[in-house]
């Protein structure tokens, strides 16, 4: 999954928007996260089934859960590939989602504050999630899987843009 790959998820009106992608490491981060959830769940599920039924059943349940985790890989890749953002002249555009596709447009002038967060998995891969908040609770402009340096750069850039274009309520 490289940034240069042709845009399979382009919307009809996308011409002229230069979508930027999160870091390719995001897919790895998501895989690790799924793995971190799947393995304990499979282990516990297998142990419970094993204790309640037969050891074979326990093994089956555990393996089944692991396979389910592996299958989610397919969806993960598509979900990660669906993320994109574009810094336009006056607003930030973010798109995401495979089943339910969303695109958000947030004018820089509406920005109230910016969060840059990084969970343990993201941190270990040098990634961060950037989130732009407006006065509306429903606005969601979140960009996961940015390179940490890039996230900091984007944050400063957005903050200065927000300052120059600031609008009140």
């Amino acid at each position, binding site marked *: 999954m490289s940034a240069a790959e042709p845009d399979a998820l382009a919307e009809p009106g996308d011409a002229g928007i230069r979508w930027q992608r999160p870091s390719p490491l995001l897919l790895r981060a998501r895989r690790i996260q799924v793995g971190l959830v799947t393995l304990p769940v499979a282990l516990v599920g297998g142990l419970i089934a094993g204790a309640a039924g037969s050891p074979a059943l326990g093994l089956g349940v555990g393996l089944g859960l692991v396979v389910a985790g592996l299958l989610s890989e397919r969806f993960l890749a598509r979900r990660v590939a669906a993320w994109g953002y574009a810094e336009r002249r006056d607003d930030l555009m973010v798109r995401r989602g495979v*089943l*339910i596709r969303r695109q958000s447009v947030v004018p820089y002038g509406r920005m109230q504050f910016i969060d840059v967060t990084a969970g343990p998995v993201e941190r270990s891969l040098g990634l961060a999630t950037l989130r732009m908040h407006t006065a509306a609770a429903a606005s969601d402009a979140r960009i996961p899987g940015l390179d940490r340096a890039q996230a900091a750069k984007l944050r400063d850039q957005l903050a200065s843009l927000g300052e120059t274009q600031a609008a009140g309520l």
Partner: protein
Amino acid sequence: VTVPPAGGSPAPPVPPADDIASWHRLHPLSPLVRAGRHLVGIGILVILFLFANQRGSQTGNDLIYDLVIIALVLGAGLVSWLVTRWQVADGVLRIETGLVRRQSRRFPLSQVQAIDVVQTGLARVLGLAELRLRMAGGDSSGGRLASLPLADAERLRQRLLSMAHASGPAAAGTPPGTPAPGQVAGPERPLFRVRSECLVGAIALSRTGVFAGVVIAALLAVIAATGQPGVTASLLPVVIGVALGIWRRFNGEFGTAVSAAPDGLRLRSGLVQTTAETIRPGRVQAVRLVEPLVWRLFGWCRLEVDVAGARQRRENRSEAQRLRALVPVGSRADAERMLGELLTAPPRPTRRPPARARWKAPLGYHFLGWDGDDRYVVASRGRVCRTTTWVPLEKVQSIRWVQGPVQRRLGLASVRLDVAGRRVTASIADRDAAEAQQILARLPDLARAARQAGRAAPGGAARGGAARGGTARDAVNRA
């Protein structure tokens, strides 16, 4: 620090005109008013306990405990009154409070969204009122001055508002036709007054009312079936909850009267607790017209406005979630008149979605629609409870385009417009995908133009203002 003589009825702590710059205390009776609500609650509890422990022997003990609690509440109130003081200086209202944990809060008047005068039942008996400052930040960010004598509260409110106007042309969203300081208290033109019988009917036919009916019916059925009224005691909390809900709504919306004043729409309402607030047109984030199924039979509707900054009612969370009802219940004509007062030539949701949207929203299709010009976007939806939302483009915080799996199959998409707060989103639902894409492409520019126009000519934005270039409607016509 001016210390008023305790219990002095002509209540000196408040400002004859010019010395609000020095420190003041609140009215000495304010702890009593503050505790009033708790006293009522405690009183009910005492009665309940007495009732429940009729056969018990420690009734006397309980009573003593309750009296101790009441004394503690009053004592705490007295201490908090002693350590609370306020001052207005340099366009900033400062409130200092707290004995152990000192707290000093500053409210820059230029940031004030509105100032309400609220009188609870007890306060009305004592001739006191509470001043509530609404800031944009929502629930806990506002300031309260509780309580001042009513006349002083009104005077202080006007002074603060005129100071807010004087210091606030730089503040964004300055209301249209900003009056000169001192002009704030001009003549008022009455616009609407809710009819009490309508309100009773409307509440009875609302969701809460129907729920209350069901609860009462259930109670009666249980009593009839068992023949023992005592069985229903366990349902008491539900009954009390429902009754409180209905009472709050009735109390809050009773006698709602709206009039146009130079600084905006003046809204007064309340039966026991009265509230007077001013809605400045430039602060209106959204307007919503709600027509529930049953109300439509009577030709009734409800018009609400969303203003930044939640209503300051810590005691009542649900109140903050609700919008301010300018027309709690009224005819279409009432609502239209009020709408015309809030927005200039508002568009109607006349653009229908493509017929294939019926597959996605078989019921909702009936009322789906939107329209927009260079100032407003309107969208309507909902089959049972028809909701039409107007949003000034100037106030749009973000725009979202959403396409679910069914919509994708049908070639549809929705666009949502968010305004400040968590209450209102205008949803242009189930449009043709190409049209939705057009809307998404054009609206940000239109919104920016509207914002800039609003900033260039403060006041010209929400009302008036010549047509500027393309409108949202044109955007789609060109598509």
